[in-house]
């Protein structure tokens, strides 16, 4: 399991048309990786994520995606994910096919994917219209009680990308704090890329901590700050001001496009992105 640059990792492992999951529930969202995918101009991706917030708003608005599997899409605590909305409502910059779940359903899909079962079972979607509009939501009959339970197909992304606190030099990765469905999404994928805040000699993981061993990881890249504007527990807090600022930036097509051009396409990598943002006063 090599430690590489993020550019190398994305170049080598993310293909046009791939089903790609960038996971991390509010915490440890792999923003740097999402921007590198934009920078490299990937197209027709099937984006998978429980909460497509700013990271997918950027990718969808930049034209990377043809489909979205999700369970909640917005700017948490702020409002709409404007670029995702406009893709769905108006087909801009291109139409976005949606496969919509509940959180519980999507979590069950990742769990099934990690366990290499073809489906997950839950007592879910009861009385809702979700199953009516998503043909992937089906049901099985319990062979003991006769009860009908909802099923979701396993989620097995071509590539899952996570951000974590630390890797050691062998590439073992420690995740600490709010976990979301990161481990399940990572183990469900055919390839697993991880960006980390730092590479250390010794993970010093506490007993029963969440450690992904190096041999299930395809590549690790060290990208300090790579979860910004989300957060990395122990490194930096969530930049709520940027989430609020994003509402304005993303509301307008042109302003969004200019922002992507200046800050993503106009910078060589995430360090360059942060430097330009700081120079422009958008970062403390």
């Amino acid at each position, binding site marked *: 399991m090599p430690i590489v640059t993020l550019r190398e990792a994305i170049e080598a492992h993310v293909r046009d048309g791939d089903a790609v999951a960038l996971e991390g*529930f*509010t*915490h440890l969202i792999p923003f740097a990786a999402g921007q590198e995918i934009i920078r490299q101009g990937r197209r027709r991706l099937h984006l998978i994520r*429980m*909460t497509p917030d700013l990271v997918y708003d950027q990718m969808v608005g930049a034209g990377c995606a043809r489909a979205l599997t999700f*369970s*909640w*899409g*917005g700017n*948490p*605590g702020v409002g*709409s*994910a404007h670029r*995702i*909305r406009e893709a*769905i*409502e108006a087909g801009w910059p291109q139409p976005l096919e949606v496969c*919509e779940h*509940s*959180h*519980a359903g999507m*979590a*069950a899909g*990742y*769990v099934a994917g990690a366990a290499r079962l073809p489906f997950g079972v*839950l*007592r*879910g*979607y*009861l*009385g*809702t*219209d*979700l199953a009516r*509009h998503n043909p992937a939501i089906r049901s099985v009959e319990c062979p003991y009680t006769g*009860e009908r339970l909802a099923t979701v197909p396993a989620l097995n992304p071509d590539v899952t990308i996570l951000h974590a606190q630390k890797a050691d030099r062998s590439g073992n990765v420690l995740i600490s*704090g*709010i*976990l*979301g*469905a990161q*481990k*399940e999404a990572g183990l469900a994928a055919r390839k697993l890329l991880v960006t980390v805040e730092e590479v250390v000699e010794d993970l010093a993981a506490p007993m029963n901590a969440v450690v992904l061993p190096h041999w299930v990881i395809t590549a690790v890249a060290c990208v*300090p*700050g790579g979860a*910004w*504007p989300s*957060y990395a*527990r122990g*490194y*930096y*807090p*969530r930049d*709520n*001001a940027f*989430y609020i600022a994003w509402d304005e930036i993303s509301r307008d097509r042109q302003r969004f496009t200019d922002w992507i051009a200046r800050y993503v396409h106009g910078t060589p990598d995430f*360090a360059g992105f*942060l430097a330009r943002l700081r120079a422009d006063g958008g*970062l*403390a």
Partner: protein
Amino acid sequence: MSSVRAAAPWTPDEMMTVTAARMLWNGCVCFVGIGLPSAAANLARLLHAPQIVLIYESGTIGTRPEVLPLSIGDGELADTAAAVVPLPEIFAYWLQGGRIDVGFLGAAQVDRFGNLNSTVIGPYARPKVRLPGAGGAPEIAAHARQVFVVLKQSARSFVPKLDFVSSAGFLDGGGARGRSGAPGAGPQAIITDYGVLRPQPGTEEFALVARYEGVDPADAVRATGWPLAVAERLEVIAPPTTVELEALRALHARTQTAHSRPVELPV
């Protein structure tokens, strides 16, 4: 600052938050969403329900945040939690496991049976407004022992027919929910800016059963897209006490301070 002055006027949000907080009891296990429910649950914890158990869907169990989270997964929630578990576990073992007393839900639309829409305005395939979507709501609505809905009343939000059912209340009423196999008892209160609606026995249609001081129930009826029934004996909800208002405002002030601290990246 004099506490009498501070307590004098209050906003509808404050009235709703205090009303929701009062419905929570000490020891209650509460599945909390962001925004007003989170404020209400933490207000209850700071006042009459110190042993309330707060669970956020991000995986934090028994959390005791000093300030309100802006997102459902702020670091503060993990740092003060009794346990931080994977998200799939929260939905499987804790929510579906039947361990939640109260789930809070908001929505864009509610109908007379407490069914909620947080998905779309207009047709699903050609949305007029695409909303964020259901998130955890469908299973919170199904599995929490009871659900409290928090939503300001207007003809746009209290509608005769939902554009989309994101989470189930009493479905078509008259026992339909019970027959659907949903384990929880469903929505037991809708807390609005006029008062509180509760489901009526038998029909399971929501009626206004309590109003805030100074509210004319006729205004609540006008702000509802269906012919809202009003209870014969309409309870009057006491205004926020000084203690409640001060605690809530202090909580919001702490939150404001914490969230406006500039973030310094170590790079």
